């Protein structure tokens, strides 16, 4: 009888031990970072040769006002890492910055890139590059519109920025689209979703932003 009891005690103990050390509790914040890239295969049968970066990180917010606070803490990392990758791919002469001000803010990392202002001639870049950040959890597919100040510029932008189902607060998106098709809602040719970049540690956020944007371009060899 004692032996039978001992068997059951052992079985219970080992099973409890196994459950107690079931994996899944050793996840760091950085482990949840992902970089997803989606592209339309037909749009890259001929890779682009030039690009213009809209020098503004569009903040995608919810209408209920329940957005996370954000004051452009990682704008510079988003824009400048994107710019650096574009310059690497297409060359400094084939990359442009679209800015509504004479002095772009944040300061571009590459001073040799040409700044295009609202009333300058259209450089006819192959791709417009549109950075944005989600400040409210999105649970659908839709379009959001950047601030009014783009109206009246030489592209007659108010380009829509796509957002997608179930992307988390803090996700950074960078999209590419033919500038001549910015006004329609057919979706971007290329979009990266860099998930989970916002934590309370700004320095940590900046490092992960640079790493994430670099990874997005690394895993998209069809862009060049």
């Amino acid at each position: 009888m004692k032996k039978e009891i001992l068997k059951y005690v052992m079985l219970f103990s080992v099973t409890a031990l196994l459950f107690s050390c079931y994996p899944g509790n050793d996840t760091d914040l950085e482990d949840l970072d992902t970089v997803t890239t989606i592209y339309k295969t037909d749009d890259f049968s001929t890779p682009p040769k030039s690009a213009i970066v809209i020098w503004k990180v569009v903040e995608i917010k919810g209408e209920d006002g329940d957005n996370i606070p954000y004051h452009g803490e990682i704008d510079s990392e988003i824009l400048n890492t994107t710019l650096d990758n574009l310059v690497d791919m297409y060359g400094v002469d084939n990359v442009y910055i679209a800015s509504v001000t004479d002095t772009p803010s944040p300061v571009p990392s590459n001073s040799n890139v040409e700044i295009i202002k609202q009333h300058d001639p259209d450089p006819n870049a192959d791709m417009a590059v549109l950075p944005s950040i989600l400040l409210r959890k999105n649970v659908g597919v839709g379009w959001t519109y950047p601030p009014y100040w783009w109206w009246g510029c030489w592209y007659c932008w108010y380009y829509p920025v796509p957002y997608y189902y179930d992307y988390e607060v803090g996700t950074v998106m960078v999209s590419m689209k033919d500038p001549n098709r910015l006004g329609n809602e057919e979706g971007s040719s290329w979009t990266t979703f860099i998930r989970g970049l916002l934590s309370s540690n700004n320095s940590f956020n900046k490092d992960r932003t640079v790493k994430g944007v670099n990874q997005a371009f690394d895993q998209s060899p069809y862009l060049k």
Partner: protein
Amino acid sequence: MRKIYITAILLIGLTISSYAQSSYWSLNWDITKAAGDTGDYIGNINFRGVSFDGRAFINDNISIGGSVAWYTLYDKLSGLPPIEIDNGDGTAGHISGTQARYLNLVPVLINSHFYFDSGGDFKPYIGIGLGGIYTEQRTEIGLSSFSSDSYAFGAQPEIGVYIPFGYSGTGLNLALRYLYGTSAGDLDSLSMFTFAIGIGFMN
């Protein structure tokens, strides 16, 4: 007639008493190391496993029985190539990030063992188990999860030894096993070594 009954009873008694033991039970902590395709998926040594084994002796040297086990293999990998995505609607892409990989295995096997005469109290044995293996494979990247499961046919050769604690019917069970499972569903064939250490009960 009475002599026949007495003779029969004596023969049966002699036969039963000639078996040194009638059953063997063991409960083990299993340490696993995947090999082959399974090892490519999770290559590290995992310490999350348990098995329960029951055997009935049909003579001094041979037993038949069954076993059930549960193994959880886990590894966290970073710096891997991105996983390809093909949405099938003219869009494609990649997803990259730290991958948490899980394998949950539940082999349920019938087995037979042969016990060598060691000349001492301990009992070395070899055996083979055959049956089914339920496998769940799951890869998590960030909050995305890709999983599939299967029921496969499995075989498990084994060598081991039972070392009694003194003269009691309780002892240490040590075993080295190789578990093979056929490919099934979306999953490749399974290949895994197991080192089991546990408590054995010899009745």
